[in-house]
């Protein structure tokens, strides 16, 4: 039988499974005859295992939240600058007396923070648009099929506009907005009292928490829930008794239309 000149380079390569089958077989034969050599292979293999464990602890795989936030922001695709949208956002923020420092996205829990951030932005939008009566939306309810296709394409999400008449809400139409340069579909309804309720779908860069969140903002109630890259937000008057039920059905109610 051929006897290989075995050195540490070969033993390490053997321990890592990097030798060709023939050489592997030859090394195995020599290991079977030489317990000291076999022990050395076990030791070299153990160092690899230990090193992997030593550098796989929480401290070595932890990502500081600030870094995660910065990279998540970088990962958001750039969209063309739209002055009218910026104006609407600034107006909304002023109307709501917003505290910008509290509204920055990506807090300690990015999944929850992203929903809270989208809810903040949508609350501001709602403050601006819900005050309109004659021009509540740009694309009317008659173009429901077009809205579904167009907004679905922008959001990269196939959905159906829900019929909420059983919950006292008539669909009025929709529009496309943006939060953090990512698209948001705003589906606008009105209650029997004529007060608008918006069901919004936002595309986000990260993953959103599936836990339903509720927040009251003055007379408004906001409900938010995530699924994958999308956040679903319902906003309307806190006095509307149907809103919690509708919110509980998000996002499934967007499947059935």
């Amino acid at each position, binding site marked *: 039988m051929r006897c290989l000149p075995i050195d540490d*380079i070969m033993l390490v390569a053997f321990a*890592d499974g990097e030798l060709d089958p023939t050489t592997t077989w030859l090394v195995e034969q020599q290991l079977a005859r030489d317990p000291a050599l076999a022990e050395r292979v076990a030791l070299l293999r153990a*160092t690899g295992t230990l*090193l992997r464990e030593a*550098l796989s602890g929480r401290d070595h795989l932890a*990502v500081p939240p600030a870094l995660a936030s910065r990279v998540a922001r970088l990962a958001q695709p750039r969209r063309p600058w739209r002055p009218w949208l910026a104006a609407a956002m600034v107006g909304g923020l002023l109307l709501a007396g917003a505290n910008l420092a509290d509204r920055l996205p990506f807090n300690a829990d990015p999944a929850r923070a992203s929903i809270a951030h989208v809810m903040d932005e949508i609350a501001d939008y709602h403050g601006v648009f819900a005050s309109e009566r004659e021009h509540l939306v740009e694309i009317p309810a008659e173009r429901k099929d077009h809205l579904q296709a167009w907004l679905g394409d922008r959001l990269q999400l196939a959905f159906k506009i829900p019929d909420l008449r059983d919950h006292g809400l008539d669909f009025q139409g929709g529009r496309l907005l943006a939060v953090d340069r990512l698209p948001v579909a705003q589906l606008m309804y009105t209650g029997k009292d004529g007060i608008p309720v918006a069901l919004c779908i936002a595309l986000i*860069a990260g993953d959103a928490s599936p836990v339903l969140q509720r927040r009251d903002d003055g007379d408004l109630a906001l409900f938010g829930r995530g*699924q994958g890259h999308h956040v679903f937000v319902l906003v309307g008057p806190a006095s509307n008794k149907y809103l919690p039920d509708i919110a509980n059905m998000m996002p499934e109610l967007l499947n059935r239309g």
Partner: protein
Amino acid sequence: MQIVPLGQIELGRQIVDLLPRMRRFALVLTRSPDMADDLVQSSAARALERTAQWEDGTRLDHWLFRIIKTVWLNGRKAARLRQTECLDDHADSSATDGSAAMEAHMTLNEVRAAFARLPEDQQRALFLVSVEGYSYRQAAELLDVPLGTVISRLARGRVALAQRTTDNTDRIVVLRRNRS
């Protein structure tokens, strides 16, 4: 509900998912948490600017690690980086109870300390193969060195680690056998 592929957004999400490994590699290169964070951010930015260069179906982590190494080398050329904090300052705190766990904990710290004392070239080769699980050839590609150089660095690094941790390595092997 059907979520369709997200293209660049999906790539961005995958980069975010890989951040722990990216940062760990950056820590091996820089040995400083602050510099590692800067390196990861710069590398992520570069990757996102050049998404067209990534071939769908190939390993994203491999591409990102190449970018990290390139950005790091460029940074070293531009300015001499000060290495202010060693890896062994990052003590693992996962083992908390029992003598076996304590012993394992001590051993892992010693392995980290021994790793931190290895020459940088050996550290990088060892990290890519033993920790990240790359093949020798992939590690050679990532490090832009011949295959033989990686093999040599790996062997020297592993032998040095074995020598510096022999007693504890024997102990931990015995502990594992007893537990299994």
